[in-house]
Every structure is written in structure tokens, then in C-alpha cells.
């Protein structure tokens, strides 16, 4: 166990799984870097350095730089997964899914079903998401609700370094296509991470705080905001349960329904665009299956219905931050507090 960043945790998971299983290969644009160039090789290790050091260790046959052809190489990862390899492909920013989604949602996700069960497609797609980087509308989206919508895909949203390592190892060992979402604003976040490999099972939520007054269900980076709010409010006599579902597909509906029922007051926090997102998904689930336990309207805290703006002055307003979460919790617990 030692302190590692989210970036290091991901790198370590990749390294350990590549050591364990020769069939694990990784590919993506500049995940090593310098290919064909006269200068430094492994020059980048991915645009934010997440895969740095893997090419020198495993060689270019297992760490494949690609041309800028997401349909081509993500489709290749899918095809390779269906024929014996266990590829981890990097879709640099999830915002780029629009040029290659077919290979993910119509091919990888559906092979098993369309082929009557006779396909196994253990492909992982690692991808960056989220706002806060001043990266503007086409490099800041969440989009995991879209992947969650598709049967046949699994979707992991690690909220800290520990989750990142364990969920990525599970993603690689899992026999289904997994989309692994890395929040770009968390790469430098530190946390305790065991040195040995470990897998966190999918569909098992993590209850990060326990409380009586309200239940906050939050996703990805938002879990950290929710924890902060819970800690702050607990000093003010409002105690909150915080649930990190860890994966949106499968979703741990049991824990969500139980913790919602316990307090009867629910806030769902989702950084994604507000329509047909995880906030609505979870709120609807509760309104259907834990309705009788609810003591107050469910509150959703999400980004507004607009593209992500560039200007820091606007982007800071765009992100569903701790203030908005706190206000929502205060609203559901009501005057009493």
C-alpha cells in the first residue's frame, strides 16, 4: 500500500495485467509516442502521460501507437478481442466517440447476442471525460449515459486512485466490452493504492459515507464533491450517506434502493448533460422501486443543458460543484435542519 495518483494507479493496473497475461495489449494515439520520429521514443505515454513507461517495458508489439483513425483501431481492438487477444484501446477523449461508436455499440456490444452467445469480446476502451480543463465543448463531455444506454456494454467510472486500479483490472479480466472512464481532472489526485493487483467486482456500489438524513448518489469525480459536502454538513448536524455506484452498467440497484430507503431523502449527482443521464436513471429507479420510502422529492444535480463553455468564468458555473450539491441536500432534508 502506498500513495499513488489516479494516473499512477491506472498505469500500474495496465502494467500488472500485461505482466500477468501476454494477450493483453494496449493501443491508441501516441500512447507511447515518437513512432517514426527522429527524437525521443515513448515521448508522451499518452497525451497526459498515463501510459508512460509501458512501451519501453513491453515493446511496440504490445504497446501500439496508431494513426488517427478511431474507427479503424477501435474496430481492430474489437476484432482482436473476438479472435484471442485482450486489447485495451485508448479513445483519447470520449468526445471523439462520434467517429467510431459503431464499432463499439453495434459490433463489440452486440456480438455475443447476435451470434447466439458464441462470441467473447474482452475489449476495454479507456477514455477521458469531464469538464474543468478549459478544454471547451468538444473535449469536456461526460457521455457515459450514452454508453450506459447500450445493452452489451459495461461502464466503469472510477472516483479515485484505489477505484481506478481495481476497476481497471476487473475491466481487463472481464470477458465483456468495458468502457473505462477516466476523469481528466483527477489524474493528479492521490490516494492509498495497494501495490499488488486486485479487482473490484462490477455492479457493487461503494458506500463512502453513512448517514441518516439524506442519501447522495454520485458518479465519478462527483463522488469526491459529495464526500466533501457530506463531511461539511455532518459538522452542521446533517448526516449523509454517499453512494459511489462505481459502474453504471451493471448498476448496483440493490444498494441504491436500500440506501435511498434508509433516509427517504435522495440527491443524485451527475456531471453529465441533464437529459437521459445517470441522474434521471437513478432517480427513476428509486421513484419506481423505493417510492414508498421516499419522504421528499428526489433532487438531481447535473450540468445544465448547454455545451461545455471554454471560458473559465463560465466553465466553473457549468460544473455541478459542491455548492449546488449542498443546496440540494439542504432542500431535501428541508426546514428541519
Amino acid at each position, binding site marked *: 500500500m502506498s500513495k499513488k495518483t489516479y494516473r499512477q494507479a491506472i498505469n500500474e493496473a495496465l502494467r500488472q495485467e500485461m505482466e500477468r497475461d501476454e*494477450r493483453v*495489449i494496449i493501443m491508441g494515439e501516441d500512447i507511447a509516442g515518437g513512432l517514426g520520429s527522429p527524437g525521443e521514443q515513448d515521448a508522451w505515454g499518452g497525451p497526459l502521460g498515463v501510459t508512460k513507461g509501458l512501451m519501453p517495458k513491453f515493446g511496440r*508489439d*504490445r504497446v*501500439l501507437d*496508431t*494513426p488517427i*483513425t478511431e*474507427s*479503424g*483501431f*477501435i*474496430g*481492430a*481492438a*474489437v*476484432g*482482436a*478481442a*473476438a*479472435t*484471442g*487477444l485482450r*486489447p485495451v484501446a485508448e479513445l483519447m477523449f470520449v468526445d471523439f466517440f462520434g467517429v467510431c461508436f*459503431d*464499432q463499439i455499440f*453495434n*459490433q463489440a456490444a*452486440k*456480438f*455475443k*447476442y*447476435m*451470434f*447466439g*452467445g*458464441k*462470441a*467473447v469480446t*474482452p475489449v476495454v476502451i479507456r477514455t477521458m471525460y469531464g469538464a474543468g480543463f478549459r478544454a471547451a465543448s468538444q473535449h469536456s463531455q461526460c457521455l457515459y449515459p450514452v454508453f450506459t444506454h447500450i*445493452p*452489451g456494454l*459495461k461502464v466503469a467510472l472510477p472516483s479515485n486512485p484505489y477505484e481506478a486500479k481495481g476497476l481497471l483490472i476487473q475491466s481487463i479480466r*472481464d*470477458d*465483456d466490452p468495458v468502457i473505462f472512464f477516466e476523469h481528466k481532472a483527477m489524474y493528479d489526485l492521490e490516494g492509498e493504492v495497494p501495490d499488488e493487483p486486485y479487482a473490484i*467486482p*462490477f*455492479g457493487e456500489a461503494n458506500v463512502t459515507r453513512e448517514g441518516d438524513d439524506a442519501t447522495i448518489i454520485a458518479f465519478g469525480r462527483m463522488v469526491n464533491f459529495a464526500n466533501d459536502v457530506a463531511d461539511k454538513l455532518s459538522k452542521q448536524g446533517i448526516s449523509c450517506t454517499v453512494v459511489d455506484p462505481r459502474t453504471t452498467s*451493471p448498476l448496483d440497484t440493490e444498494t441504491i434502493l436500500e440506501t435511498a430507503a434508509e433516509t427517504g431523502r435522495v440527491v443524485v449527482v451527475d456531471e453529465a448533460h441533464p437529459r437521459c443521464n445517470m441522474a434521471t436513471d437513478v432517480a427513476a429507479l428509486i421513484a419506481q422501486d423505493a417510492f414508498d420510502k421516499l419522504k421528499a422529492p428526489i433532487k438531481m444535480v447535473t450540468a445544465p443543458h448547454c455545451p461545455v463553455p471554454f471560458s473559465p468564468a463560465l466553465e466553473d458555473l457549468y460544473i455541478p460543484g459542491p455548492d449546488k450539491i449542498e443546496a440540494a441536500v439542504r432542500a431535501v432534508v428541508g426546514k428541519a435542519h
Partner: protein
Amino acid sequence: MQLSRDDLLQAYRRMRLIREFEDAVHDEFSAGNIPGFVHLYAGEEASAVGFCMHLDERDAIASTHRGHGHCIAKGCDERAMMFEIFGKKDGLCGGKGGSMHIADLSKGMMGANGIVGGGPPLICGAALSAKTLKTGGVAIAFVGDGGSNQGTTFESYNLAKVWNLPAIFVIEDNGYAETTSSSWSVAGSQVDRGKGFGMPAVQVDGSDFFAVWEVAREAIERARGGGGPSLVHVKCMRYYGHFEGDAATYKAPDEVARYKATKDPLMLFRQRVTEAGLLDGQALDAIDREAKARIEQCVAEAKAAPLPTEKDLLTDVYTSPY
């Protein structure tokens, strides 16, 4: 000529089986016994068989929406295929895929594909597996003339070349994408496009099994030997409409009939091998009869077979726990 007598019999048997299969599906569809979108391969048999004759279990192919021929050529079970097209539980895909998704990965057949241009990236992956796992395998993407314009196809050319993959892109140019002529939709030429990506690229007459077989041999040997990808442009003709139900009024009235009379690949094969004294007509007649009987039996059994039921609806979505 490096085709043995057995090879020749096998080639003819496969082509005839495809033809009978497609004719039967056409009849059954017309009679209202088969639902959905069904695209038939009749007329193009020499392409699938000319390539797949060189392949074995190490090798993979990806097909198009017009996939029955590639399936049979790659060794899929025609009975299970027929069941599949009828939507039956014991179909090749449990009735879940149907004509447009017919597949058998255990045979290296990575699927018909409902997405035009869906196959080429997958084939880069299969070729990458072969290269990485050093199986000696190659991978072939069959692509229509229409599919040759899809961005995924071009990306795959480039990827296969820069990764030096054992991949082959076979453009089956039957002259039309739905109603639209390839003489209009394809700017430049297939061969020049292939060369633009630094790949060896040739055109071949898809009515001539032997010509196809020969260019296939070259491309596949090159790929197996580490020489990288190639492109082959096969000119051919589809005999039925784009999908079942299409009257193909956009074609010249006598276009198909004239081709059938003068260039049918099975007819030309028969002519060639009998004239050269390689096979006699009786052996071929026997194959014709067997194929017909076999397909009739497949249809009869498929019709009688049970449908999937409610408990099949939610299986096969995931492999690991969900």
C-alpha cells in the same frame, strides 16, 4: 494450375451449395416464410469460394449484409444457417442474428454485418491477433462497391498498411449499392485507391473462378509471408434484387439475363474443367443433385424446427457476471 481434382470438386460443391442455398431462400422469402431484410449472394459465388479455398482454421473473414456465400465458403454449417434465417432456436446464432448477422467465430467467420463498412476494422483486429499470436493466419474483409466508400474501409487500408498486417481487402463490385451504380459512386478506381495507400492492388473478373483463385493465392501468400495487406477488386453481378422484395428496375432489363447466359461463374467453371478434361460432367451433375437435395432438406428441417422462447430473450447479453 495447382488445384487438385479434390480441390476442384470442393470448389464447385461450395459454389453450387451457395447457389442452391440462395435460390431456396429466395423462394421461401417470396412465399412469405422468411421475415426481415435478406440479401442474396447468387451470382458472386466465385469470389467467396475463390478466396476461402485458400483459408483454414487459422484464418478469419468478415462479411457484409450479403453474407450467406461467405459463410458457406468459410465452412459454416448450411443447415444451422438455414435455421438461423428462419429464426429458429437451433439456428447458427440461436435465431437472434438472422440473415444480416449470421456468423460462426469457431469457423473464423466473423459475421455478416448490418453496417456497411463494419467489417474492415474488425479484420484488422483479426489480422493483428494472428500477427501477435504468431498463428500464421490471415484475415480477409469482403466489402461491396458501396462499402468501399465508407470511411471505416479507408481507415482500415491505412491501418493495415502501417501495422503491416496480414489483411486482404476484397472489393466485391457487383455494380450497385442498392440502386446506385458504382460507376457513379466510386470516384477514381479501386485499384488506384489501393495503390494510393501503398498496397498491391489488382482487378479481377469475378465470373472466372480460376482468375479469382489465382489473385487470391498471391495476396494470401503475401500476407502469410509478412508482406502486408493487399486489395483485390472483383467485378461481379448479383442475380437477385438488393434485398428480397426489390425488383431491381434500375438495372438494364437484360443485364442479369445476359450475364447468366454468358458469364455465370458456375457455368464457366463447368465449361473450363470439362473442356480441359479435369472433371467430367457426371461428377458435376452429382454435386448439383446433392446440393439441391441437401438444401431442400435444410429448408424442410428449418421449417419444422422450434422457435426460441421467452427464456432465450435475455441470455447471451454478457459473458462475465452482470
